[in-house]
């Protein structure tokens, strides 16, 4: 929606951040202190360094949309060159983003999208189908394509997780009739909560064969619980995790394999997308192309989505090749 139109004039002349040179990029992750976003920050920083811009990451301590809005507003006041946001809510931060765009600040969402009308480009880690597919395939393989599985998600409102869960449900129903999804629980991307939810999950579902945790905090907490429980090796665990957090659980056999794209690359690509927008190289239309440094050329897809690539599957054989 448009924003009453009353403030559209005020930003004229301030959208001069265009061009790669001294572009001030502000990253606003879902929350601070989240290793996933620390990794994307590293990527964003190195991209900014490459094209000669400045980089800043600010954000709330809790992953709630209202606190995120304040930081978006501040960036707007500072007339940041470009905004890269991972949304805590598809709608709630919308009007704040619109205000930023009203004064010509390009807005890129990454990792977790808003409704398309609020941003110029969404940099997706992989397309949602691909992510869902990869996780279902992993768990099916590990439990022999039959039995009960459960999902340990992040916050109940997390956009991307909910989308994946929906797709995973569809995929299971369609292609894996012998796998039954018995429960979805929410760990709120909080170590303790995820840990305790795993315990409860195992207790209330004695026949559980596998757990999918499509969030890095969740899978690490679940792995840690499993590694010390009687279910170690009995219940399969897979999902999305960072290699550094999961290494010891791969080593001790708690986890066989899990997937993730490289969040560093995600941040890197997002920063380049922002830069391309600021420079006017792309406008977010389908078919626009831009070059993202070492990652090469990317094309904007439908709805302004740029897809990083397929997720990588990590297992014993390759985990030591990664450090993030």
């Amino acid at each position, binding site marked *: *929606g*448009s*924003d*009453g139109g*009353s*403030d559209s*004039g*005020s930003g004229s002349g301030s959208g001069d951040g265009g061009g790669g040179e001294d572009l001030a990029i502000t990253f606003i992750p879902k929350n*601070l202190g989240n290793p996933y976003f620390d990794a994307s920050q590293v990527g964003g920083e190195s991209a900014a360094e490459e094209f000669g811009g400045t980089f*800043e990451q*600010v*954000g*709330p*301590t*809790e992953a*709630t*949309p*209202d*606190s995120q*809005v*304040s*930081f978006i*507003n*501040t960036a*707007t*006041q*500072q*007339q940041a060159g470009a905004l890269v946001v991972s949304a805590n*809510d*598809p*709608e*709630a*931060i*919308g*009007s704040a983003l619109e205000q930023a765009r009203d004064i010509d600040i390009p807005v890129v969402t990454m990792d977790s999208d808003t*409704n398309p009308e609020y941003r110029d480009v969404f940099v997706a880690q992989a397309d949602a189908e691909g992510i869902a597919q990869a996780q279902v395939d992993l768990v099916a393989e590990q439990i022999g394509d039959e039995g009960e599985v459960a999902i340990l998600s992040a*916050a*109940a*409102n997390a956009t991307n997780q*909910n989308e994946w869960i929906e797709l995973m449900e569809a995929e299971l129903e369609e292609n894996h009739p012998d796998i039954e999804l018995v429960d*979805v629980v*929410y760990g709120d991307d909080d170590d303790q909560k995820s840990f305790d939810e795993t315990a409860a999950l195992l207790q209330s579902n004695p026949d559980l064969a596998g757990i999918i945790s499509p969030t890095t905090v969740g899978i690490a907490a679940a792995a840690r619980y499993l590694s010390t429980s009687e279910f170690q090796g009995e219940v399969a665990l897979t999902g999305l995790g960072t290699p550094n957090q999961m290494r010891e659980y791969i080593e001790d056999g708690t986890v066989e394999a899990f997937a993730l794209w490289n969040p560093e690359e995600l941040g890197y690509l997002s920063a380049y997308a922002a830069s391309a927008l600021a420079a006017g190289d792309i406008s977010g239309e389908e078919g626009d192309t831009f070059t993202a440094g070492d990652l090469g050329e990317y094309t904007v897809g439908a709805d302004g989505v740029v897809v990083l690539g397929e997720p990588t599957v990590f297992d014993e054989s390759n985990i030591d090749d990664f450090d993030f």
Partner: protein
Amino acid sequence: MSTTLSGPSTDGSATAPRTYADSARSPIARLLGTRDAAVLGLLLAVVVYAVAVVPNFDSELTVYFLVLDVAPILLIALPMTLVIVTGEIDLSVASIVAVTSVLFGVLTREGAPIALAAVLAVLAGALAGAVNGLLVTRLGLPSLAVTIGTLALYRGIAVGLLGTTAITDWPETWTDAVTATFGETQIPVIVVPLALAVVAFGLLLHFTSFGRGLFAIGLSSESARFSGVDVERTKLLAFVLTGLVSGVAGVYFTLRYGSSRGDNATGLELQVIAAVLLGGVSIFGGRGAIPGVLGGVLLIGVIGSALRLDGQSANVIQIVTGVLLVLSVVSAALLGWLSRRVRRRPPTAAEAAPPAVPTAGGM
């Protein structure tokens, strides 16, 4: 000695009747010597400093975002002041915001006209406040414990009602109304209702017999009761008002962020209470004023805004808020202690603690 005491005429005795001043202090001293003046002065100093030092702070947008951000805190701080003045506290306000926001969303989703849904949500807020108030007044339970309980209860209902979903499709006419500005300026339209609310609560607290009752209850609820103040009803009303206004804030929250969610306004209660206490309202009850509270709310908002613009993280803002809060209560004690130091003979523990001294003998 047959003077008539019930008539308006003066005493018949030879001496002229006594006369009294309104105040022992000069009007200037009265105006400047208050907590409110201190808070407003501090606010002014912070604003001046920020304008001078923090880049972009002097933009029109700052005012715009500041108003939108502090609106829910300010709204709830007003009735919360009433509650705290009576010596009680309400920790459940943020949960009421969440539950009314969710209710607003669910009702709209189920097809209720949006205006009706808003009214029902606000009424639900009043009901939630009434539950707090009844538990405190009828059962005589401590409000701190009661509202810790309802904090969990109301938040639980909010989260329980919506589960994984968030309701986000709100008509633009409504969401825009909340963030609209006056013409070409960046002054948000909501300053008008906010100002009206401030004035209304200012009048209620300082210029009505209800307000006098609140202060009397906070200073001595027994004396208030013996003087014909309906202590239970007054407190109940304060809680209901708090719930009601929290309901309004819930509707505001929903429309401002275009999203009805169970985790809306998490932690807002602490910000509200911090602002109220910073504004000079005594947690013991009986002392406080709306201008000071307005100052406290704006101070928290301005400091947050300035620090964010200065590139500081949320953590620094938390530290500053906390330190201010502690200082605001400790400063009074510190000053008292210093002035006692100056006196020749230090008091015993009992004298240093007026509340701890048993009432004087002879009764």
